[in-house]
């Protein structure tokens, strides 16, 4: 299949791998931001074949993992209301809230539906005018334009029974938060290719400059990831720190400007709590006042949310790349995909799930 097979070509991948082996002379710590990249690395065994000098730390780029517990509890409370059709990307349905997950709400009779696009949720709203249709708008910059488009369309077509429960997060503030932490070990970044497809890479220039780290917007197939690593390693070895684009077939310097305009038309930048990490200033999106009619947070008063976060799980440390999933004492014991202690074990982009699914034997 074009645009896929050539980036999974084992011969090309091995060539780049050999180049990495030839280039590296010192130990380096590189973080891949996006959970999709983490899964590609673990699934293809890229970490097994890299030179031992290169350590890959897994970043916080898993939207499911960083959505705060109180928002998930709120989603569960709204989804349980009698007149509501609650729609969400499938990934969110199995994430445990304090007491249950959205699948359980469904089995208790709640109308919970997995959709592929927020516009699908909008169609459901049109077809069910007597119901309130809520879409769980989570994710990074990648999903923000689609989610903004749904509100834009709802306003344009006067669909009043549609709203979004928004918990959007932004990548650059999280990168800065990690880099400014005294515990930081990361020396170079693979930036998230799809986030950069929307936002471009200009916003990373000041970060590369200020913290003197190479940042390489990178794709998700094995050849992409290996090439991204090679570009970072070359910079590190040569003492350079620039933003350098690996994901040429998708990412432009200025990004997708109509998408950016749509995001800022509907949403505004706000402080946001990241599950497991804490509040990061100016790191999220929320709905602007003029579109508040589409804000599920305001439409549904949900009181008495008592979040309950036990202490065994170290997902916060995992999400900051400070520990690997298999260094958690609960990994594969108390915590498995059927009995998850944290969202990182649930999401298909979570680092713990990737380790459990693909590599729990060899590590």
């Amino acid at each position: 299949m074009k645009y896929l097979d050539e980036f999974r070509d084992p011969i090309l991948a091995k060539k780049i791998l050999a180049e990495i082996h030839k280039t590296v002379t010192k130990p380096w710590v590189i973080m891949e931001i996006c959970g999709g990249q983490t899964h590609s690395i673990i699934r293809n065994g890229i970490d097994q074949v890299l030179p031992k000098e290169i350590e890959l730390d897994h970043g916080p780029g898993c939207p499911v993992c960083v959505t705060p517990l109180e928002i998930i509890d709120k989603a569960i409370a709204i989804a349980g209301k009698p007149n509501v059709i609650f729609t969400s990307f499938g990934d969110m349905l199995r994430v445990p809230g304090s007491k249950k997950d959205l699948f359980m709400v469904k089995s208790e009779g709640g109308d919970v539906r997995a959709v592929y696009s927020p516009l699908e949720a909008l169609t459901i709203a049109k077809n069910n005018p007597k119901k309130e249709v809520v879409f769980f708008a989570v994710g990074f910059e990648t999903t923000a334009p689609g989610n903004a488009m749904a509100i834009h369309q709802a306003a344009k077509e006067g669909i009043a029974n549609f709203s979004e429960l928004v918990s959007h997060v932004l990548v650059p503030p999280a990168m800065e938060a990690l880099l400014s932490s005294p515990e930081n070990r990361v020396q170079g970044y693979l930036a998230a290719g799809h986030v950069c497809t929307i936002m471009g890479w200009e916003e990373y220039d000041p970060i590369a400059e200020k913290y003197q780290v190479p940042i390489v917007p990178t794709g998700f197939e094995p050849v992409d990831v290996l090439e991204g690593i090679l570009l970072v390693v070359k910079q590190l070895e040569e003492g350079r720190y620039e933003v350098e684009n690996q994901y040429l077939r998708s990412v432009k310097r200025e990004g997708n400007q109509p998408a950016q305009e749509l995001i800022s038309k509907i949403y505004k930048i706000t402080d946001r709590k990241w599950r497991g990490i804490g509040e990061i200033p100016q790191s999220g999106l929320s709905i602007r006042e003029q579109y508040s009619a589409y804000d599920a947070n305001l439409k549904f008063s949900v009181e008495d949310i008592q979040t309950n976060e036990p202490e065994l799980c170290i997902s916060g440390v995992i999400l900051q790349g400070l520990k690997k999933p298999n260094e958690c004492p609960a990994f594969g014991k108390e915590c498995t995909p059927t009995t998850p202690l944290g969202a990182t074990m649930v999401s298909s982009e979570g680092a713990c799930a990737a380790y459990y699914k693909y590599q729990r034997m060899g590590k």
Partner: protein
Amino acid sequence: MKIENLSCPLPIMDHKTIQLAHGAGGQLSNDLIDTLFLPRFSNKTLNAMEDQAVLDFPGKRLSFSTDTFVVDPIFFPGGNIGELAINGTVNDVAMCGAKPLFLSVAFILEEGLPMEDLHQILISMEIAAKKAGVTIVTGDTKVVNKGSCDKIFINTTGIGVLEPDLNIASSQIKIGDKIILSGTLADHGMAVMTSRDGLSFQSRVKSDTAALNGLIDSMLKGSNNIHALRDPTRGGVATTLNEFARSSNMGISLIEENIPVKSDVKGACEILGIDPLYVANEGKLIAVVSNEDAPNILDAMKNHPLGKDAVIIGEVVSNHPGMVTMKTGLGANRIVDMPIGEQLPRIC
């Protein structure tokens, strides 16, 4: 930045009610069988946990199996619920090498089902039964209130006979055995998924639904050294291989590059964020065969229309007992796990 609010929700271990994932063929389905069903009904035949029961009758050996079909939509590219119900049970009966002979068919119909739909479904069942060489000898019909079932549910039960010396079961799997897949993966599951409401792209993916008893006949003519057979339906090839690895307590090692997936199926899987290894097939089988006879059996398969794309995808190994692994294109190894429940589409 300080690490604060280390997060960790309460574990949700006990399901107080049935979840959809309990029916998805993965880990939760297995848990349901192991903890609720088997302890109640335990006996030697059932505990073998094959797709069919092999029963010794005076002068005969019988293969006996049942399955219920609840697919949505009931008509999909390449087939409908009716032929699925015939082929599915024929295949389950045949996966021990038996010749399927008789079927029972039971319908649960929802009030309001268009008569024309039922008629179409019955015509395809008639054709499928003829093709598979089985006779429908008994049946039942119930109609329930609108909303009490989804259009039409079909149960089929089948009986077949098998040769006295044939013993095809996961207990026969041996180290060094080759694993043959009869053709491309994930056609049926993706045909159904891409024809569901709400997906705004068109695909040409067609279900592979087919009765495999003819293919198995041809294979047995190539060699009797077939150790295990199973059709990788719900839960896909990954689930079937994990069942083989667990019940034989041996390891299975696959080669990623050998796994055949049609280009348009691969495309649909990529768009929906779904791994073809976990997607249902309705006209494919996995054979675990002796190393020596693998070439003969593979040849026999390739000469049959339903096995023309057959390929060796891996082998049975002594290390990592109970586990399935895959050699990636980069030469690394990864686990191919049992799924938990349904595959969930990803956020981005």
